[in-house]
């Protein structure tokens, strides 16, 4: 995918369905936000009527609610509990099957041919999260073939956030609110007194070809482009949370022995929610399953969390048996060790870990507390 293309066009909101159909006709399963169980989650959508039109979300530490706005906006919310990793880095993945024939056994690689998927409504923080997982699974020493196949079959239709959520801090993490790279399409939804439309930018050759299959879209005027910029500046100014990232790696490395970890451990329930909702958390475990007669076995890869005791188990016990050191491990990895591993932060500032923490532990607050605490190591 190329970087920002200059030419922007106008897609009237009423023609969003046409846009979806072009993608579907090109063989893409369209996936986007839908309202389910009073949350906005990603699922297959057939038409724009499946999108959460007129819904918005309100998020705070440990709290998430959706409500009707009375407006017709299709993307007037931020991120829900699901991240796109559920499609790219599957929560459960069958790697291979083995069969025994008495003394020996044979292993058959699972034939994995994922369908083409278009992700509709990928936010800037989520594009950044996908790029971070790309680094782990595609650009490190080894390639994850399952991820690679899914990623190659993915079309990204990004949507700029035109409101900032209560737990958002993408501006601090330098990942948003505007989508600047890593997209096929980037859309900004505008609703004023007269008109409801999207300013569309394409970021890949494929996107350009797909656009050509649409009925002719008029070019966005300078005024319309300025409107987008204005809107995005406004969002940037209104972030619900903020993190000072200056020397943040060293901040964590200097505080391995801080009492703060013990204090957080009195609140943290080790539920692992933060790791499940985090769009960059990538840890997995391997699970071998055998049938009842013991003749067939399967190797499954499943999402895992560093908050469990088993996670660091080596014979004799867990390396991190304390609640405090497990929390410390998670947040230190995210904000510090990730820099050493992948030359960037592991946090995209989406705020999911704050929203979905049952006791409302807020990483942005904890980082502020850490800054106030004296270095201990």
């Amino acid at each position, binding site marked *: 995918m190329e970087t920002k293309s200059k030419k922007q066009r106008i897609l009237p909101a009423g023609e969003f369905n046409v846009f979806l159909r072009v993608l579907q006709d090109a063989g893409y399963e369209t996936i986007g936000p839908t309202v389910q169980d009073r949350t906005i989650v990603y699922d297959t959508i057939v038409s724009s009527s499946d999108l959460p039109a007129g819904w918005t979300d309100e998020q705070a530490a440990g709290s998430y609610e959706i409500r009707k706005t009375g407006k017709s906006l299709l993307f007037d919310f931020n991120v829900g509990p699901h991240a796109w990793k559920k499609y790219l880095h599957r929560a459960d993945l069958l*790697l291979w099957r083995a069969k025994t024939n008495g003394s020996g056994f044979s292993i058959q690689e699972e034939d994995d041919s994922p369908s083409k998927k278009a992700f509709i409504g990928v936010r800037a923080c989520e594009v950044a999260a996908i790029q971070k997982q790309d680094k782990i699974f595609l650009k*490190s020493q*080894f390639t994850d073939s399952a991820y690679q196949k899914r990623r190659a079959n993915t079309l990204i239709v990004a949507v700029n956030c035109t409101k900032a959520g209560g737990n958002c801090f993408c501006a601090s993490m330098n990942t948003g609110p505007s989508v600047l790279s890593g997209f096929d399409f980037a859309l900004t939804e505008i609703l004023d007194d007269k008109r409801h439309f999207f300013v569309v930018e394409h970021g890949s050759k494929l996107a350009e070809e797909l656009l050509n299959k649409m009925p002719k879209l008029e070019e966005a005027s300078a005024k319309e482009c300025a409107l987008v910029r204005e809107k995005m500046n406004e969002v940037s100014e209104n972030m619900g949370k903020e993190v000072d990232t200056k020397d943040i790696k060293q901040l964590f490395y200097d505080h391995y022995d801080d009492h703060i970890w013990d204090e957080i451990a009195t609140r943290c329930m080790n539920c692992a929610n933060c790791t499940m909702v985090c769009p960059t958390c990538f840890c*997995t*475990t391997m699970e071998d399953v055998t049938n009842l007669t013991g003749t067939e076995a399967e190797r499954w*890869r499943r999402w895992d969390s560093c908050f469990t005791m088993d996670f660091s188990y080596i014979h004799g016990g867990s390396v991190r048996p304390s609640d405090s050191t497990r929390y410390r491990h998670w947040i230190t990895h995210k904000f510090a060790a990730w820099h050493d591993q992948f030359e960037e932060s592991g946090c995209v500032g989406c705020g999911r870990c704050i929203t979905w923490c049952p006791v409302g532990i807020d990483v942005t607050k904890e980082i502020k507390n850490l800054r106030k605490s004296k270095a201990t190591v």
Partner: protein
Amino acid sequence: MSNHNGNPMLPESFSVKRIKNETDDTFTVELQPSKKVLDLSFEAGQFNMLYIFGVGEIPISISGDPCSTDSLVHTTRVVGTVTKAMRKLHVGDLIGVRGPFGNPWPVEEAKGKDVVLIAGGIGLAPIRPVINYIISNRNKFENVVVLYGTRTPKDILYAKEIKFWEKKHRIQTFVTVDRAIGEWEGNVGVVTKLVARTPFDPKNAIAMACGPEVMMRFTVRELQKRGIANSSIYVSTERNMKCGIGHCGHCQFGAEFVCKDGPVFRYDKIAHLFDVWEV
């Protein structure tokens, strides 16, 4: 054996060629590939993921000879379900193998230098390929010393072989045990105590240590007292591993993935983590 079938997550089929008890709770398996044309080369210090059908998969260091790789040799201790099942295998039984993985011992860098190898317990198994390599290239190394500590005299690995290291290959070997009951003419005391009296030139030596973390912490302190630089000390660490390729996250030790950045680390690179509690 460079990730034999292209997909590092897919085990390759091997069969048991030999299986031998070393001590009461340790044993060595020798494996040969079911397909004849597999490259079994590895570097001293690397490990494989061994899979027992229907039981599970674990990382085990390679303890064979990197200069003669017609089979895979693994020495391990019976500690969990997989190693228990492994010891019950017979000649001809199949094992799945993924690997070799991991960052090796610095054998090339050690050439022309004194080499101090310090092993504790089963930690001798990952050090043995270094010793085998040195034996095949003995003239390229200066003074070579092995310091080896175990629990009791019954727990000494490769007991017969150790005698030849000294006699035939000029590798001075000092064995010490934590406790000895009855007939034991050798040393009693912790292995770290031996460092102070080991003959090597701290200015031109490389030390490699493998054993329980506590033992290595004290070993490093003793080496430092001798004046050897942190950048000339190498340690092998142990963490939970599931994938072996740096993707599953389990083996993280600070910012390091033990499976691919380790298990062997130059001490100065991880010194800051060595005394951190539950890192």
